[in-house]
């Protein structure tokens, strides 16, 4: 009886959208792996997607409002602990401390991926107290703290791309909560000033280089601008219908950098052409729209803010990643949600979407 009601509310369109995007990601990873049988990224990713699906469906049995909402501080605390652990004791891998090796199993997790989701939950839990009233400037302190702690820790790894997502998410959520013009202006000013300070002191030389390269990629075609140039060539040479499965010369001859994570969209665009990339963008549009739909029909502030937050995680990552691949934004090193290779990213995305489904099936239209 209850199950049937849940099933009626289950968003099958969103589910199909997720499956299609994930499928496109798997296909692309398979295409890249075709060159080198020793690489088993595709098999690993299949397992990750399987586990993620189990997580997505499994989480439906726990009421978000009672279970997830109550567990939020604990989850947030755990992820902050892991981030601190990374800074203190993390293994330096190619210049960054991003992964934690899980003992006894050959697995690594990336806490920053989960940090995004739990920060959103934490923010939502805090913001529900405002109960629909427009927040004043004095009320910004705690949200800034909730976002600031993981932001600094992630920026320290350093992982500027992921860190960048957090303030964007916060601003979107506060925007959704309603705002006073004065509040937003001051927040914006703070962002510019801190951004400038961070830019001066925290940015590594390679990060500065990436930004210069973004402004004028041809200045150093074999250096920092290389990735953008090659990525644009890959996308552009795909044409209308693409070069075909496993036919992308830019990706298969390794002109394209980090193809199965940050630049996976370029591989897809090269092999599938404009039709393929248009399809994918429409799918992402649908994804975002369906998350917003869940927000709209939900019945409490926690649910609304959570959906908005999760929507903005996806939204900002999609924009930043595709913007980067097409040369509209600087290279920041951010994966494309549901497409890029990576277990933590996949799990975190499905977890976030699981929460959206959870909210969706428990929001009944008022009879």
């Amino acid at each position, binding site marked *: 009886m209850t199950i049937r009601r849940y099933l009626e509310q289950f968003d099958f369109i969103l589910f199909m959208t997720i499956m299609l995007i994930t499928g496109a990601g798997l296909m692309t990873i398979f295409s890249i792996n075709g060159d080198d049988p020793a690489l088993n990224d595709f098999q690993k990713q299949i397992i990750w997607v399987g586990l993620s699906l189990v997580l997505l469906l499994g989480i439906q049995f726990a009421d978000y409002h009672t279970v997830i909402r109550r567990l939020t501080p604990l989850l947030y605390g755990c992820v902050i602990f892991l981030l601190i652990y990374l800074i203190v004791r993390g293994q330096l891998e190619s210049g960054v401390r991003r992964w934690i090796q899980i003992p006894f199993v050959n697995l690594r997790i990336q806490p920053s991926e989960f940090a995004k989701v739990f920060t959103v939950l934490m923010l939502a839990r805090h913001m529900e107290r405002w109960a629909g009233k427009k927040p004043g400037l004095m009320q910004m302190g705690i949200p800034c703290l909730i976002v600031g702690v993981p932001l600094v820790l992630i920026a320290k790894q350093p992982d500027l791309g992921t860190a960048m997502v957090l303030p964007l998410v916060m601003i979107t959520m506060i925007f959704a909560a309603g705002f006073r013009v004065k509040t937003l202006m001051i927040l914006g000013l703070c962002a510019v000033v801190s951004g400038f300070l961070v830019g001066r002191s925290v940015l590594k030389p390679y990060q500065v280089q990436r930004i210069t390269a973004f402004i004028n990629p041809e200045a150093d075609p074999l250096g920092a601008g290389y990735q953008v140039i090659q990525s644009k060539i890959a996308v552009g*040479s795909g044409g209308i219908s693409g070069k075909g499965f496993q036919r992308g*010369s830019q990706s298969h001859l390794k002109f394209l950098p980090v193809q199965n994570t940050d630049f996976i969209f370029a591989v897809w665009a090269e092999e599938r052409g404009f039709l393929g990339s248009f399809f994918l*963008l429409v799918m992402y549009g649908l994804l975002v729209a369906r998350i917003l739909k869940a927000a709209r029909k939900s019945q409490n502030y926690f649910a609304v803010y959570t959906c908005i937050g999760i929507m903005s995680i996806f939204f900002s990552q999609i924009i930043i990643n595709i913007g980067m691949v097409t040369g509209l934004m600087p290279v920041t090193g951010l994966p494309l949600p549901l497409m890029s290779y990576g277990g933590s990213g996949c799990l975190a995305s499905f977890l976030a979407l699981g929460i959206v489904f959870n909210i969706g099936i428990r929001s009944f239209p008022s009879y």
Partner: protein
Amino acid sequence: MLFPIVLLLLIIRLFNLQVVHYETYAEKAHSNRTRYVRDRAPRGRIIDRNGVLLAATKPSFSLYITPEDFPFERREQVFDRLGRILNVPAESIKKRYSDTQTASFRPRKITGNLTHESVVRIESSRYHLPGVSIEAEYVRSYPFKNTLCHVLGYVGEISRAELQTDTFRHYRMGDVIGRSGIERTMEHLLNGRDGYRWVEVDATGRQGFTLRYPEPVQAIPGSEVQLTINLELQKACESFLEPWKGSIIVMDPQNGDILAMASRPEFDPNLFATGITSADWNLIINCPDNPLLNRAIQFEAPPGSVFKAITAIAAMKTGDVTSNSSYTCAGVFNFSNNRFHCWHRPGHGNLNLISAMECSCNIFFYQAGLKTGIDKIASTARDFGLGAITGIPLTGEKPGLMPDRDWKRRAFNDDWWPGETISVSIGQGGVITTPTQIATMMSKIANRGTLYKPRLVSGYTEQASRNTILFEPGIKSNMPDFKHWDTIIDSLEKVVKGSRGTARRLRMREMTLAGKTGTAQVISLNALQRMGYDSEDDVPVHWRSHGWFAGFGPVDNPEVVIVVFIENAGKEGGREKFTIARNVLHKWYELTKPGYFGPEPDMMEDLYDN
């Protein structure tokens, strides 16, 4: 809201990249993944008549820069770095790069013959040298160094002006072409056609499969050219000629094959193979003896008494002199207020043609020449190939000069004086010839009438098909109606055999020999006396007379013609030429007659003669 607008922006961007600018990016992707690779065709080898390798190719490394892979902003940096590695000014590399015009995908050659160390240093700093590549190529090498250098010639890089010409339209900047000698004249055979193909490369430049389109073109190696030269004989000739300046030619009178062609001093053609350094070039070009000169074809000297054979033939042809005609030599001949001396002041007495040839009497030939007339002498000389290029396949052959009435009219707008005929009839008075002309002349006498074009290249072998194409001997003229060969050849044989023969020191046990000596005055004796040089020993080297010997043997069935020419021989060289000719003939005998073990000691008196 914001969201659909941003999404639309992204879609517009993708449309712009993938649909509007598709062509641009497709082209970039294509040039990313493809590389133009040139397959070098080795230059054809040159071998001697027995197959000994005279000019080979050996691998070497060259430095190239491909414009399309050469980022504009980093050029200065790359030039600097290359300059440091190669130890040359960065400016010169830059100049070389900008002077070379190629399509942007085609590598431009910067320098060749890299040292092993440079190769290693360039390869190891690959990342800092975008667009720079090293290619294995072939360079010319001459294993016997100076030996036969004038005949082989040398190679050099093609010039910009040459590239514009039609002959070299399929050549590229940086290609090597023959600059002189056989290398130049056989360029069309020796030069292979480079092949090319497009290969797929990955981001690290590793080459993958060859693309089917544009279609690959196979390299065609240059043909192997076979010379008529016998290397052993050549080496011997060059060593016998030392320390003199001059030339030796050994020729087969039955087909015109050049068996040896020596010219001293010589140079090392290997110096040119990789681009001669200015120090080496200055050394060669400033040497007063001019080692680059191939004296066999480029030195024009009066033939002296060797020419008496021509005067004799002309006189007998016209019937002005018969085997019975005789003149008396009293040591001096008066002709219109001028006194013409015989080289033998006491005089030779009464002589017929054979005895006059034997002792090389001037007076006899003065009178024979006067009677025959300059025009007949000149036309006979031309029939024997004098005063014109022989057509030997070498660069820079000089024609020499056979003066006559017409020439005098054209050159000086003046009449021919009979006194000039007197000088011409003993091979002076403006007659100049090259040693090669004398060799072809003597061959015509030896084979009784056939003038051959000297043959240096017997044929070539195409490397792809292994087809060998042989060149026929080139006959330039015949003399079927001349009846007095026996008399002429007898007289020349007498020069060696006769007791008064001027070449009697050349008498050999091994074979009968016929020939003629010659002493060519560089400056008239009167002029020397006026300058106060009484004894020949006082005369400065560059005014000393040249020494000639031209002969053939065996007399009955001639197999070999030899010409020895010694520049500024003077008295000493005039004696030395016989020793040289004897040594060459012995060597020839040793090389062609199996079971022969060298000459027996010959007891000949040491005489200086004309």
